[in-house]
């Protein structure tokens, strides 16, 4: 298999193709290619999945570094290159993205009825942007993808969303942009430091990673980057955009938002925050602050979710709780904790994505999402009910499902370094049952007293085909997570080692860098004008 892939040069072009195919699809849709737009988009998304699947085999699980790297000069005048690469972290998130997208599109095949062409073009642009974030190895390129992805999401929520869509779209946009703009200043500061040190212009990840920073600089830069990522994750108290955006977005938008977009923040923690600012990231006060915010997210979101009358809003809040576990896992700073965080992310992508799809299917049938409007549906739509109940249980971490593995590892990793935090975090698992089970009970069981629900159709074949892979994924991750874990292990161990080494007291981080005003580099480069 590997030999075959190598013979066609697969490792060299795969990442470029992954970025290019959706953009071509978008252009084709906007140019008015024949066929129904939803079919075209689905074909493109499936092709994308087909291109990405061999990554799983071609990926060398023993290596910690970047694989499938590609590079060419983009704006060499500023040291900006198109640099992409993939390690164990990116691999999982890219595969999650390419897998979720066709499912989201097919799952809502009949949901979008107006302005289809534009909608599907936006979805494909969104996919390209998300994959770009996960594979970019140049900070300028990364920032570009990070920002550009807001535009399609803004339009998806704003045009095809629910009642309060404009409010939700603008809130989503401004919240996310707020954090990322400060990150831009941080990136430019790193760029400037690198230049002051070496005289070269570069935005390359590997180059900027080498920039030595003083303690003070690390804290400020940590703040700038952490804010951008914390808003995206989202970490309490920056989560308020999420319920609005998730509830107002159309089903495919909600699915992609929950399943993939939220992972970008946590990805930022792993890719940038920990290795770039190890001193700040291991400082006891900062670690404790992040852990406590994670705990608050877990518990507070669970309580808020429990009282939501709207099922979609309830699921939206559970995302905040799940992301709390990710924060615990990340800031435990142990290999196990990081693995747990990654598995929670994957599991959340599958289970919450599936829940949003299921609610979307319910909404298409009944045009309501209020829990009180339902009751006893399991008797009229047994398959639907079974799928929903299983997904809900996977979401709250039933042993044997993906949710359990993730939360267990995250808590175990946290326990190694912060036992009390882990113990408090465990209560979150109980609260999860407290919000999820009554909702399941009230929708699917109880008595069938609303006559409108009497002839609710069961799942169609298309809907089954959409849900089956998600359910299989949850089971697989829950029963046999080893292949996934072993592909991430070298990367995560290397990450932990890097953080430990670079934050060690032996290293001198107080190297003084020349005062910016005295830097003479400018005249030399600009050239031409010297007398």
């Amino acid at each position, binding site marked *: 298999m590997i030999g075959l892939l190598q013979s066609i040069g697969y490792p060299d072009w795969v990442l470029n193709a992954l970025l290019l195919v959706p953009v071509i699809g978008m252009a084709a849709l906007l140019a008015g290619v024949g066929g129904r737009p939803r079919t075209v988009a689905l074909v493109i998304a499936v092709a994308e999945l087909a291109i990405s699947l061999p990554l799983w085999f071609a990926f060398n699980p023993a290596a910690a570094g970047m694989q499938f790297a590609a590079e060419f000069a983009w704006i060499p005048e500023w040291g900006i290159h198109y640099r992409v690469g993939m390690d164990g972290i990116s691999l999982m998130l890219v595969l999650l993205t390419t897998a979720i997208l066709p499912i989201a599109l097919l799952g809502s095949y009949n949901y979008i009825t107006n302005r289809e062409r534009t909608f599907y073009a936006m979805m494909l642009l969104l996919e390209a942007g998300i994959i770009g974030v996960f594979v970019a190895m140049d900070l300028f390129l990364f920032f570009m993808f990070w920002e550009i992805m807001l535009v399609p999401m803004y339009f998806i929520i704003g045009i095809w969303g629910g009642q309060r869509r404009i409010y939700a779209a603008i809130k989503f*946009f401004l919240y996310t942009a707020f954090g990322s703009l400060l990150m831009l200043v941080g990136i430019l500061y790193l760029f400037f430091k690198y230049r002051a040190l070496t005289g070269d212009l570069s935005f390359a990840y590997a180059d900027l990673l080498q920039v030595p920073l003083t303690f003070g600089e690390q804290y400020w830069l940590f703040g700038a980057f952490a804010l951008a990522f914390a808003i995206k994750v989202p970490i309490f108290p920056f989560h308020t955009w999420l319920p609005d955006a998730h509830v107002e977005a159309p089903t495919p938008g909600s699915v992609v938002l929950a399943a993939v977009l939220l992972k970008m923040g946590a990805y930022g923690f792993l890719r940038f925050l920990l290795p770039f600012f190890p001193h700040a990231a291991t400082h006891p006060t900062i670690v404790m602050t992040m852990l406590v915010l994670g705990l608050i997210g877990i518990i507070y979101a669970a309580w808020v979710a429990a009282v939501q009358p709207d099922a979609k809003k309830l699921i939206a809040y559970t995302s905040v709780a799940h992301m709390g576990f990710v924060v615990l896992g990340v800031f435990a700073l142990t290999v196990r904790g990081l693995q747990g965080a990654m598995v929670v992310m994957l599991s959340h992508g599958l289970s919450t994505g599936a829940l949003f799809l299921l609610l979307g299917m319910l909404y298409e049938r009944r045009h309501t999402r209020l829990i009180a409007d339902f009751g006893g549906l399991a008797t009229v739509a047994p398959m639907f009910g079974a799928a929903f109940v299983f997904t809900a249980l996977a979401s709250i971490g039933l042993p044997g499902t993906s949710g359990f593995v993730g939360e267990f590892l995250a808590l175990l990793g946290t326990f190694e370094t912060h036992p009390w935090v882990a113990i408090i975090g465990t209560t979150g698992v109980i609260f999860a049952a407290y919000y999820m089970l009554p909702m399941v009970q009230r929708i699917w069981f109880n008595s069938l007293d609303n006559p409108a629900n009497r002839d609710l159709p069961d799942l169609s074949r298309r809907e089954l085909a959409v849900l089956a892979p998600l359910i299989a994924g949850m089971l697989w991750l829950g029963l046999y997570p080893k292949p996934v874990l072993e592909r991430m292990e070298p990367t995560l161990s290397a990450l932990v080692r890097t953080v430990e080494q670079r934050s060690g007291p032996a290293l001198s981080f107080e190297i003084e860098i020349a005062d910016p005003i005295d830097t003479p580099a*400018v005249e030399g480069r600009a050239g031409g004008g010297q007398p």
Partner: protein
Amino acid sequence: MMPDFSHPADYAIALLPEIVLSVWAMVVLLVDVFQKGSRSEPSSAVIPWLAGVGVLLAAGANTWLATLGTGPASAAIAMDGFRIFANYVFLLAAGFFLIISTRYLEEEHMRLGELYVLVLFATVGMMVFAGSADLMLIFIGLELMSVPVYVLTGVNRRDVRSAEGALKYFLLGAFSSAFFLLGVALVFGATGATNLSEIAIAVGVDGIGASPMLLMGVAMLAVGFGFKVAAVPFHMWTPDAYEGAPAPIAGFMAAAVKAAAFAAFLRVFLTAFPGLYDTWNAMAVWLAVITMISANLIALVEGNVKRMLAYSSIAHAGYLLVALAAASVLGAASFLFYSLVYTIMTMGAFAVVIAVAGRQEANLDLESYAGLGWKRPLLGIVMTVFLLSLAGFPLTAGFIGKVFLLRAAVERGLVLLAVVLVLASLVSYWYYLRVAWYMWFRDAEPGAGAGPEPSTGLKVALATAAVLVLALGVAPGPLLSLAEQSAATLLRVPAATVGLLLP
């Protein structure tokens, strides 16, 4: 054959683009007079084309000038890349004006030959304003630019808003010219020179012994420039003048007049007063901060798109002041790049305003943009591109420009100023995106038609501007280095003043 200004004919070489354009403007005026039978008749349709030829000729002369290379720093006429680059920006704005205004002026019964002539003369003024290295010449350029623009603001004689805007602009503009002239006099009194490089030598290194008279003069000059670039708190005339002026002229003012004033601002402060940097630096920083924050906040509540663009142009003046505060080759280069980008995207946005506004500019409010994207998709898409670029979004030229400004600020150690800039941009997202949400998220009123088809000229201008905005957003490389090289020639110094060099 670089002119060394030992012979009067050398001035003719150094001023070739200005001379070409002035002469051509007079030719256009004469053609118009001889063609017209009586005063009330509209001018011939050939006039705008003639004016366009003049712009092209001036651009050709400018290109020829660029081949001569960099001249002596002590000359009264600057012979450097900074001037060449800035000239292109003004000529580009004038060209855009000619393309977007033809049908508009015809429909509003304003196709007057003298209007085109005034635009050409204003462009000459800008080139003199930005290209001179002597305070007296700079003042002449300032007036040569301002007087035609006052007239252009009030050119729509049937509209009371136009008259109001023109009067306000004229009174405040005259006031600011007086400030500027007083500044020139005080600086002359303190240093005995009006030539910028001579002033730099007289001021000396680190401004030691700077007299109060000199500092007063610098402050007066800053006030004069502040009015012209519409920096807060000297911006009061801007919204009224832009609202009153016919839309194409408002776009021309927002883009070119501002760029010219900034180019002169940078030239004077970077080449004449580098020794006083520590003194005027704080002023530049605070002017930038106040301008960015207040203009963006006021624009938040503006429901009239033309006025919104006026406040947006004030906000952009704030961003450009960051380039001044950075006071370096990078700062000057970021100004050049941003002013070019800003010209393109602003002219584009005003072209959309013209396409939507209809007769008598009746449809300027946000409500007129409801559902525009679905009614007229191409118009909606290009407007979205311009808005994203004005807001500074990746893959548009505005983003690269903003990163350039931020880079200049950060490399000068002005990290907090950079933070203010990004926070101000965040505020601006709201009002730019609001237009986008009216266009795409709302549906048009049931009865509203699609509006008239834009003229061919307008379509050409919109397409050109949108393509340029995207192209410069994706592949800005060559222009970035050109801007840096051009800016480096501004900060070259005569041998005597080495030591005053800014980074």
